[in-house]
């Protein structure tokens, strides 16, 4: 997947749904070890510890609430588990101490809504928003057709060509 598809998807949704709200994108969550902070300062420690901190797609200040927002194009199930994982991590995030007292809402944004996901998300108290811009339609169609017979045959033919050229 192009690395920019999901960030663009999330930003578009935020513009549409929260056009005047304060928002933070790509926000690291969780604590940074004190030993690293003592040695390198807050910014240096955060940079060194960066690979070990999960990042939420967006935080939105919506009225009195803080919305924890994840966009998931291909794997909506991951969005549910990510949001449940992120919710308590917010309390341990030094950069977000000011936001820790706000009421939290968890919001999953996806391009299409399977029945099972709606029921599961509701059970966990998550809000699910369907956002399907026109440019997403082709991607969703290709994802849904990926395991069909014609697409499997196309991939097999491609692999044969690559193998014949010594590329696979």
């Amino acid at each position, binding site marked *: 997947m*192009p*690395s*920019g*598809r*999901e*960030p*663009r998807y*999330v*930003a*578009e949704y935020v*513009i549409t749904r929260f*056009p*005047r*709200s*304060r*928002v*933070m*994108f*790509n*926000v*690291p969550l969780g604590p940074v070890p004190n030993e690293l902070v003592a040695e390198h300062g*807050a*910014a*240096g420690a*955060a*940079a060194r510890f*960066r690979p070990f901190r999960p*990042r939420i797609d967006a935080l939105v200040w919506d009225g009195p609430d803080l919305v924890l927002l994840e966009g998931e194009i291909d794997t909506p199930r991951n969005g549910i588990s990510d949001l449940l994982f992120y919710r308590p991590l917010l309390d341990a995030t030094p950069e977000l101490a000011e936001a820790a007292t706000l009421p939290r809402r968890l919001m999953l944004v996806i391009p299409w809504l399977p029945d099972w996901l709606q029921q599961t998300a509701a059970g966990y108290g998550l809000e699910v928003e369907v956002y399907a811009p026109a440019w997403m339609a082709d991607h969703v169609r290709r994802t849904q057709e990926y395991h069909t017979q014609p697409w499997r045959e196309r991939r097999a033919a491609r692999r044969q060509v690559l193998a014949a050229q010594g590329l696979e």
Partner: protein
Amino acid sequence: MVSPGGWVELRLGVPATFRIIDWREVDRPITDATFGVAKTVRGLVLLVDTLSPPGSLANLSILSSRFRALLQPYLETGSYRDLTFTATKLGTGFLSEYRLEISATEPP
């Protein structure tokens, strides 16, 4: 931080706050740091009014595809005109990342 040449330098962990005045897409030749291969990447150049430190016009170059993807909808819809942006560089080198905060600009 603005260089003598008029470019915003995003420094690790230091938020840079700005308003976007104008923008354009550019193609930049770069050399892949890992494989040493030359290639061209699409990037953005923003003309910004810097607010920290305050008060000067400068250019901000963005080559990160994820950072560009976050900004592009704000640029294409024109909604950037009423907003204030704060970018913070989270890491350096390969796959450097940025946190981006956006808020409504207060009327003067």
